[in-house]
């Protein structure tokens, strides 16, 4: 009880957000990748982060579960300061699901074992319970028949859905997605987005780094545009994607939505 009351105090100083960041900086040697990010994600909110490659989107995401250690600044997850050196980072990560661009399924384990190993080793669940949870989550992502397969036998879309099910099996409070569809063949993207849509419908708190603008517009409560290590613009998806205020956002969207188009150059007349 005493611990709960202390945590409540922390929450009151850091707001009730699922994720809260204050003046977050991250450098790799001389290269400053994040140049002071202030940012929050509310409970149950779906936030999509867009921006050119090298803008710091993935690093931002990886600072939340401390796959990267911030150079300075603070990050709170559900009110707990995860940048405090005394925090049990393994305990924090248990509550945060992470989905990677390259899936990162464990190739030496079957799909079922991929979903049960952390439940058993980290959460200390029994074999029967872990497998029950795993089967339920495989069902949820449409892979009920793949439990005994190995990752090498799955298509990219199936592998990514298995990876999502693996994260879900830990019962996370929030999910981080790092370009979850960027490594997929175009025809397999839809299945993964469908699973992500169902998570949104269930009220999962999600932060998604993505290049899928249509998906962001459809499901996001908020879209964040990052460039060169700062948040340039954020707001409702129809505002950021439909009527961007900042020239860098407009330039980026023009290039992404219309790859052949180069607004800075005079256009050749196609009739000539």
């Amino acid at each position, binding site marked *: 009880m005493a611990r709960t009351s202390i945590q409540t105090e922390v929450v009151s100083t850091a707001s009730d957000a699922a994720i809260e960041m204050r003046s977050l900086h991250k450098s790799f040697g001389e290269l400053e990748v994040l140049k002071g990010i202030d940012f929050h994600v509310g409970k149950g909110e779906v936030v999509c982060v867009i921006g050119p490659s090298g803008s710091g989107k993935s690093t931002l995401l990886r600072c939340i579960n401390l796959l990267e250690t911030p150079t300075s600044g603070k990050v709170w997850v559900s009110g707990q300061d995860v940048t405090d050196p005394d925090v049990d980072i393994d305990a924090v990560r*248990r509550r945060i*699901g992470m989905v990677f661009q390259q899936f*990162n399924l*464990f190739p030496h384990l079957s799909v079922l074992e991929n979903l049960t190993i*952390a439940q058993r*080793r980290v959460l200390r669940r029994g074999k029967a319970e872990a497998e029950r949870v795993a089967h339920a989550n495989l069902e949820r992502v449409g892979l009920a028949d793949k439990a005994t397969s190995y990752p090498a036998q799955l298509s990219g879309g199936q592998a990514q859905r298995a990876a999502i099910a693996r994260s879900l099996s830990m019962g996370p409070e929030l999910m981080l997605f790092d370009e979850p569809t960027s490594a997929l063949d175009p025809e397999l993207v839809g299945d993964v987005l469908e699973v992500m849509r169902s998570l949104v419908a269930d009220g999962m708190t999600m932060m998604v780094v993505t290049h899928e603008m249509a998906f962001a517009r459809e499901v996001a409560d908020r879209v964040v545009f990052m460039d060169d290590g700062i948040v340039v613009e954020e707001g409702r998806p129809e505002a950021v994607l439909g009527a961007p205020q900042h020239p860098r956002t407009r330039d980026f969207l023009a290039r992404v939505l219309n790859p052949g188009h180069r607004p800075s150059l005079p256009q050749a007349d196609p009739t000539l």
Partner: protein
Amino acid sequence: MTATTAAGRRGMTRRQRTRLIRGVQYAVFVGVALLIVLKADWPRLSHDYFNLTIARQLFPDILSTALKNTAAYTAMGFVFGLGLGLVLALMRLSVVAPYRWVANVYIEFFRGIPLLLWLFFLGYGVPTATGAQLPGQPYSPIVLGLGMPAAAYMAETIRAGIQAVPKGQAEAARSLGMSHGRAMVSIVIPQAFRIIVPPLTNEVILLTKDSSLVAILGVTAGTKELTKFGRDSLNQLVSPTPLVIAGLCYLIITVPLSLVVRRLEAHNNRAR
């Protein structure tokens, strides 16, 4: 002919030239083989080197004692070397600098000194200084003599294997809340060992051959391995045949292992 290619100028097509070159290669092979078969003194050779009467006297001891001891010394050296090699590999990858230094010095030392010198040191150097044999005779000098240098080579192989496991694997494991140690044991090391089974099998082949150097450690009748057995039989029976048979006995161990390595490597190449 107005052909302007090189082959055309010589009045031959490319196919004809290829046939001619291949024909010459076969002709040389057949010629040399015929020369050997016709000119060699076969009765003399077989009497000296493949003398069945002498060979029969070697059995069953050459199998039940010598081959068995060679296999046992190799296995002991390998198990000791593998255990110590794993520890050294983890030390080389440690964040604690002194561990890395110790592992580096050990590895460079044993990779740099001749095995024969090390065996002399254990078998004769230490007893000369202390006035007593190492405890655990006769196996301790054999296990340490073969195992400690083998550990240095295996440490490098294991380290390379651990580093060959994609970084995303450890990241995925940590994201699920596993500790560093748990991620190593359950996720990284099992995959590393899969990668290094072929080079480790090669290490067994090398160790099998190196076990012949144990012959210098004044072994008794019951602890003779193949080389010592062949050497002593050479004196007793006054014929090189025992050495030839001992050599064939080594091949009983090394050739199947070599075939296993080839199959595993082919399998790994397919899997990638």
